[in-house]
């Protein structure tokens, strides 16, 4: 077990810069999830930690050792790949023990470790099978078993669940979480799935275009997104963004939308007047009760019923907006509900840079 430290890590392929400088300190035993869309550099970052990609600039240390020039096998890491990367001609047992055999470990020690890992992962009945005789979830478990038997100080997961079907993914997600609680090994997990990210992470790294936009605990990232990008990426459905002009009137600051609708901002917010982006999460909107004056009037074009909740999709001031309301409220396509929002839960971002405005 070890902590992992990244200092000013950069990666470029010729002229193209893939990673623009990431600083991060991962504590011993922590579960870090790197999340972001395709092409944001999250896998590259992981592969640099693994030693499969060269580091253009900066340093990566595992434990107290700078590992920039150390081969993957000597970094004391184990990696689980997206497509499992099991050796197709070897049995499950051989797959799991291959790394140990190369290190020249004794047969009885190998046997012990493989049996223990197989027990944790419930793979004992399959040890003599070939990977092709296993289901996707079982293969994924073998891939994890191969990582576990090495007893590394860091686990690296590269989108390990994206080849599984939805149900199995939920199940394996839980298994990974349990495994981490059981083994307590520092883990770095790359995914593009924000649900996986939120549920697994002790801390979350949201990557965007080769930068870490925000590093923080899941609830913190959700409650206080550092940029519009993070706000839009974490949370489902995505946060609504409305362009607005902030004015300081007699009754405190107000956000005026392009169609003239004015939302009163909390009086405690001290914001210089100007153009901003207002972020409101769909779950922080509710329909107005009789007698209440709605803050916003939504013209619903599609209502998606999810069972407990209904997502109302529509437009306000020419901009797309989604509200998540309880299904019993009874709104359907083309209804025109008035919406109330708890403005203290709203987020204000700089219009140009997309950075969060501290209020």
């Amino acid at each position, binding site marked *: 077990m070890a902590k992992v430290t990244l200092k000013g890590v950069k990666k470029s392929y010729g002229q193209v810069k893939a990673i623009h400088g990431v600083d991060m300190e991962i504590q011993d035993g922590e579960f870090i999830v790197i999340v972001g869309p395709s092409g944001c550099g999250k896998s590259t970052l992981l592969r640099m930690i693994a030693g*499969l990609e060269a580091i253009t600039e900066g340093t990566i240390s595992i434990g107290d050792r700078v590992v920039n020039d150390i081969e*993957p096998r000597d970094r004391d890491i184990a990696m689980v*790949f997206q497509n499992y*990367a099991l*050796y197709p*001609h070897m049995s499950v047992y051989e797959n799991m023990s*291959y790394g140990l055999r190369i290190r020249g470990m004794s047969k009885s020690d190998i046997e012990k470790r493989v049996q223990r890992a197989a027990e944790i992962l419930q793979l004992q009945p399959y040890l003599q099978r070939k990977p*092709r005789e296993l289901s996707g979830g079982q293969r994924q478990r073998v891939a994890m078993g191969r990582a576990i038997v090495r007893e590394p100080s860091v686990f690296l997961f590269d989108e390990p669940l994206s080849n599984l079907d939805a149900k199995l993914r939920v199940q394996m997600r839980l298994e990974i979480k349990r495994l981490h609680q059981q083994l307590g090994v520092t883990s770095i997990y790359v995914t593009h799935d924000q649900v996986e990210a939120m549920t697994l992470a002790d801390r979350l790294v949201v990557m965007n275009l080769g930068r870490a936009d925000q590093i923080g605990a899941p609830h913190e990232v959700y409650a206080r997104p550092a940029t519009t990008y993070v706000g839009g990426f974490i949370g489902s459905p995505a946060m609504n963004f409305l362009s607005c002009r902030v004015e300081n009137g007699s009754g405190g600051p107000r956000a005026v939308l392009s169609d003239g609708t004015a939302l009163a901002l909390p009086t405690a917010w001290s914001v210089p007047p100007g153009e901003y982006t207002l972020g409101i999460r769909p779950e922080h909107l509710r329909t107005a009760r009789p007698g209440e004056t709605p803050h916003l009037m939504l013209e619903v074009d599609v209502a998606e019923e999810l069972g407990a909740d209904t997502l109302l999709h529509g437009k306000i001031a020419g901009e797309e907006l989604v509200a998540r309301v309880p299904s019993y409220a009874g709104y359907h396509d083309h209804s025109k509900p008035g919406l109330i929002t708890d403005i203290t839960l709203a987020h204000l971002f700089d219009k140009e840079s997309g950075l969060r405005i501290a209020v």
Partner: protein
Amino acid sequence: MIERRPIADFVGHLILIVTVLIVAFPIYLAVIAASHDLAGISQVPMPLLPGSEFFTNMANALLEGPKIVGVGRGTSALLLMSNSLIMAISIAVGKIIISLLSAFAIVYFRFPLRTFFFWMIFITLMLPVEVRIIPTFKVVADLGLLDTYTGLVLPLIASATATFLFRQFFMTVPDELVEAARIDGAGPMRFFWDVLVPLSRTSIAAMFVIQFIYGWNQYLWPLLIAAAPEYQTIVLAIGRLMRAPDAYEEWPLIMAMAVLALLPPVVVVVLMQRWFVKGLVETEK
């Protein structure tokens, strides 16, 4: 095919059967000719039913062999065939080893002029042995390798075709497998032996069949290199017997040798075919 189309089935089978007959008839004739004595085979028209001398002829060919003109004694087919076998197996195995290694280098290593070397190998595909036969002969002769197995085998071992085939196969092996092996701590040669070679089993089997037959059927090169009877191959011997001018041609014996020459390639194909099918059924990757 699930649909039933009796007429199409019939036509298809007819074409197949006729083609098989056309291909098989000369071979049948060779077997028939090998089963008569010289007088029997010399009748007009040639008999189409087997005679009684098959085993006598075979034994004769195997143990004594027909007289080769200009050479005092006969060379037994047993010796000729063992020469052919040594040559064909050495060529096939040598080609596979060399091609596997060179394809491994080309696909998995970044070295200066990598593409240049690949194209150099690839271009030699376009040069048949005949084109470079005089310089090759000169080199082999200068090395004193005439009338040796080394001389027979070595110049034929490099293979652009097999290198190319293995390169194509290696390129389909997922990169993650290489990375997993790196993390597991396997060095390049370890990865080659433990992962690549086992995965290439079916390609290796295919290459072995092709290259074995290629080696077995070599004619021109042994003709130049093997002057001494003890290094002659069976294909060479048959060729010499056929072209013997004004010679007393022992057709039954020659045909017996031709049938014998057919057998090892057939055995290799039949045995290896099981591997092909196995390889096709269990898609590993």
